[in-house]
Structures are given as structure tokens and as C-alpha cells.
């Protein structure tokens, strides 16, 4: 339980906010002016102060002078002006946060970390998981949800295309979830088995079919009867095993290794690959006839850099999950979420999830602040820059802008170092940034 001081001159707001704060399990006292708040501070010590920015006798900021540093009181400034947000944000130290009106219960819950366990549970559930699996509200994700919704009403086989880490298995599970089928969802990785074992994994085997086959085993096609079979890394399946798979897809019957009886199978096959359609066609890793059987309905999952607006939502979800698992109370500061959003995440959602996990491990488990590693770097980042950096058809201005931003990111926004690396004067760098309209948030 926290002792909270709510300083706001709007009596109706104060009244109802008190009821909610008390419901959240905290003790709350109120003040409607700076003078009243100062009086409370002289008599009581508070764990948290919710402070209106504009009070009848002055700015709420003046109250900061009356705080005793050793008491480690957290302060949340409340403002009705979104424009003030920027000014407050710059002042936000580890103990200062802000809320913009209108305020909701969840906002109060997240700033008052006293009743943390239920709060984090509630905030995890507050994030919508589409089809019970997918997180994101961006336009590319809405398009994806539309495709999933449509295909789930049919029995068509689906091929998922997308870069590594975009969440192909999650999309496969979402298709299964949306399908309302009776059977189960079974996932297997075609790249994980040797040529000898993949037949047994897919189609099962009879007892004594080969050395070590001590009992009868059902293959994944049988296990997914009336459900969904997810074949990950389909393009990594040995080419000489592909005719066997084709036979199952065409005839809808399976014969176990070492067996003779053909057993009917009925499941939707969702396959996935991180190769592009062009690559599949050129590299001949997948037989054409198999491709057309599997990719009746191909779906391309967008990379994270094409849906950057979903990054804060995902980061929030991952940290809430970690909080629930570990009993911690970490929460993001908006500057940190902006930093995450600025990065391209070549390893996609998987890279983001691992990064959040790493940051949580590095942070003090007793506190709520998350310590971000100084740079967000992965071996994929370099690959990404090289592969998209220079392409014919782009203007010199575009490439120059990209190089400037890449350099700034590399040196953590230090303009002097960036200018040195770029071989231009700091003044020129400032002029360029000014021309890009990017100086307000960065240095002004």
C-alpha cells in the first residue's frame, strides 16, 4: 500500500480519483492548492504525489522544491495540455513521470506501482491479442487479420512468408484458433530432422520399421487429424523427401514408414518459410508441384520495421509478461519506447522480445526502471543496412539522409562524433537535420 498525495483543484476529479486510488489499495490524501500541498508535505511523508500542472496559486512544479530528496517520493505530473508533455518529458528523471488528461484507471494503476501484481496482469490482458495470439493495431496487421479471418473460414492450405522472427508460428496458431476446427494444432520443423527421421516424423512408423523403432508412432499428419499441421521451414525439407509429402497432400492418405495400410488424413497444412517467393522459384528448394499444393493461399507477414507503431504495444506486452513471471514491477518510460521505435529490428519481433528480456535482466529487480543497453545491436543490423543501403533508383539526397541517421544511431545521437564520422562540420550536420525538420525533438 502506498501513501499518495493527490494535488488538483478540480474537486469532482479529485473525489472520483480518490475512490479509484483507494480501490487500488492505496491511502490517499488531497490538496487543491500548492499551499495545502506544502502543508501536507510538512506533516506527512508520501510515497507518490499526483500533481496537477496548473494550480490556482501557481505551477505544480513549484512543489518539487518542498520535496525531501531522501524520502525518494515519486511524482506524477498531470497535465491537460498534450503540448506540455514534451516539456515535462525532458525533466522526467527516474522519479518523475507524467499523465495527460483525460486519465483512465489503468493510467493510475500503471503509475502507482503499489498493487503491482494485479496491475501488471490487468495491463497484459488490456492489450488485445487478435485471434488469441497476435499483437498489433497497425494497418499492415489489420490487413493480416483480414486475411487470417478470410482463410480460416475455408480449408485451404496456407503458406506463410516472412523474415525470420516475424512470428510465422504465431500466425499459424492464429489461423488454427480462428478456424473453429475440432482437432489439435501440431507444429513441426522440417529443417530439424535428418533425411532418415523426417519420414517417421511426418508420416509415423510401425514397430520394427527400422533400428530403434521399438513401438508404433503416429506421424504429425495423424496427430493433427481435423486440426492444423504447421510445417515450419518447409524449404529446408530434403528435396528427395518432397514426393512423399506431395503424395499425402494430393491423395489425403498417409502410409506409416514400414507399414502398408493407407490411412485417410484430414488437416489444414500451414507451411512457412523465410525465403521470398522469388528465392523459392530461383533456388529450387521446393518442388513446383508441392509449392502450389501448399501455397493455395500465401500470406506475407510484415517485418516489424514496417509496423513501427506496434513496437510500444509489443514492448509493453513483453515487459508485462516478464513482470508476471518474475514478480517484478518494471515499466517503460516514454523516451525508452521512442528509442525502441527508432530502431529497425532486423531480427523482428523475436529480436525485440529478446532485447526486452535482456533489459529486464540488467535492471534492478527491486525497482521499476528498466535499464536499456547502451546500443541496440545485432549481427542482423549490419546485414540489413548493407542490403538496403544502396539500390539503384534512389536519389543522392535520400542516401545522404539515411547515412546521417544511421551514423547518429550508431553514436547514440552525439552530433559532434557523428559529424566527425561523416566528414562534415557539426554546423553542416545541424543544417541537414534542420532541413529534415528533426531538430525540435533532438536538440532544441
Amino acid at each position: 500500500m502506498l501513501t499518495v498525495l493527490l494535488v488538483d483543484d478540480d474537486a469532482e476529479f479529485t473525489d472520483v480519483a480518490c475512490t479509484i486510488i483507494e480501490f487500488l489499495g492505496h491511502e490517499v490524501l488531497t490538496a487543491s492548492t500548492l499551499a495545502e500541498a506544502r502543508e501536507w508535505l510538512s506533516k506527512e511523508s508520501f510515497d507518490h504525489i499526483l500533481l496537477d500542472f496548473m494550480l490556482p496559486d501557481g505551477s505544480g512544479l513549484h512543489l518539487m522544491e518542498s520535496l525531501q530528496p531522501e524520502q525518494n517520493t515519486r511524482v506524477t505530473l498531470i497535465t491537460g495540455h498534450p503540448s506540455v508533455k514534451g516539456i515535462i518529458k525532458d525533466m522526467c528523471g527516474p522519479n518523475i513521470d507524467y499523465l495527460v488528461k483525460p486519465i483512465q484507471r489503468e493510467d493510475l494503476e500503471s503509475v502507482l506501482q503499489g498493487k503491482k501484481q494485479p496491475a501488471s496482469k490487468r495491463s497484459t490482458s488490456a492489450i488485445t491479442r487478435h485471434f488469441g495470439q497476435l499483437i498489433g493495431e497497425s494497418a499492415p496487421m489489420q490487413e493480416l487479420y483480414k486475411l487470417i479471418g478470410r482463410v480460416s473460414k475455408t480449408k485451404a492450405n496456407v503458406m506463410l512468408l516472412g523474415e525470420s522472427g516475424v512470428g510465422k508460428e504465431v500466425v499459424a496458431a492464429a489461423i488454427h484458433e480462428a478456424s473453429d476446427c475440432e482437432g489439435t494444432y501440431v507444429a513441426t520443423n522440417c529443417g530439424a530432422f535428418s533425411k532418415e527421421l523426417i519420414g517417421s516424423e511426418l508420416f509415423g512408423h510401425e514397430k520394427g520399421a527400422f533400428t530403434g523403432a521399438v513401438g508404433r508412432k503416429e506421424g504429425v499428419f495423424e496427430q493433427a487429424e481435423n486440426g492444423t499441421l504447421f510445417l515450419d521451414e518447409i524449404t529446408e525439407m530434403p528435396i528427395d523427401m518432397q514426393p512423399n509429402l506431395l503424395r499425402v497432400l494430393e491423395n489425403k492418405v498417409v502410409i506409416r514408414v514400414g507399414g502398408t495400410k493407407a490411412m485417410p488424413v484430414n488437416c489444414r497444412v500451414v507451411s512457412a518459410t523465410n525465403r521470398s517467393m522469388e528465392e523459392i522459384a530461383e533456388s529450387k528448394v521446393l518442388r513446383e508441384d508441392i509449392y502450389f499444393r501448399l501455397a493455395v493461399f500465401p500470406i506475407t507477414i510484415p517485418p516489424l520495421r514496417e509496423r513501427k507503431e506496434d513496437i510500444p504495444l509489443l514492448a509493453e506486452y513483453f515487459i508485462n509478461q516478464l513482470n508476471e513471471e518474475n514478480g517484478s514491477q518494471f515499466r517503460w518510460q516514454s523516451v525508452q519506447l521512442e528509442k525502441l521505435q527508432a530502431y529497425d529490428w532486423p531480427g523482428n519481433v523475436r529480436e525485440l522480445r529478446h532485447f526486452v528480456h535482456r533489459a529486464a535482466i540488467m535492471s534492478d529487480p527491486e525497482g521499476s526502471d528498466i535499464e536499456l543497453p547502451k546500443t541496440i545491436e545485432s549481427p542482423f543490423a549490419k546485414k540489413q543496412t548493407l542490403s538496403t543501403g544502396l539500390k539503384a533508383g534512389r536519389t543522392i539526397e535520400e542516401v545522404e539522409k539515411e547515412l546521417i541517421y544511421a551514423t547518429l544511431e550508431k553514436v547514440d545521437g552525439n552530433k559532434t562524433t557523428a559529424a566527425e564520422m561523416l566528414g562534415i562540420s557539426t554546423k553542416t550536420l545541424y543544417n541537414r537535420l534542420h532541413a529534415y525538420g528533426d531538430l525540435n525533438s533532438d536538440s532544441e
Partner: protein
Amino acid sequence: MDEGEFARLQKAVHDARRPLNRITMQSELIKLALEGAVPKDKALTALDKIIAGSKDCSDSLSDLVAQFSPNSNDAGSPTE
């Protein structure tokens, strides 16, 4: 729009946002009442306050329109 006009607009929007904030919080209170966390009669009071807050907000917006109307005589004068 000059700086004075912009300041007046900012203030008018701030005044309109005030009842909106009350409405949001009263709605949260109703949710709590529906969950059984606070007495049901608080929800009824909250609904009345939401209606009153909506009227306040509507009045603030009407004032705003009146202030910035080209026919308004007091377009340049302070709001309070």
C-alpha cells in the same frame, strides 16, 4: 491566428478538456460499480455527473465557437 488568439484557444480547449477528464473518471467509477467493487448507487451519481459534464463540455465548445466567430464583437477580449 496571432499569439493572443492562440493562447485563448489553448485555454478554451483546456477548459473543455476538464469535463472530459471528469467524464472519463466517472466512467471508470461505473466500471468499478459494475464489477461490484464500489456500491451501485455511486454508479447512478456518476451517470448524473457524466450528463452534467457532457453539458459543461458542450457549453465550453459553444463558447469557443462564439469567441472565434467572425461576427463576434469580443473576439479579441479575454475569456474570463
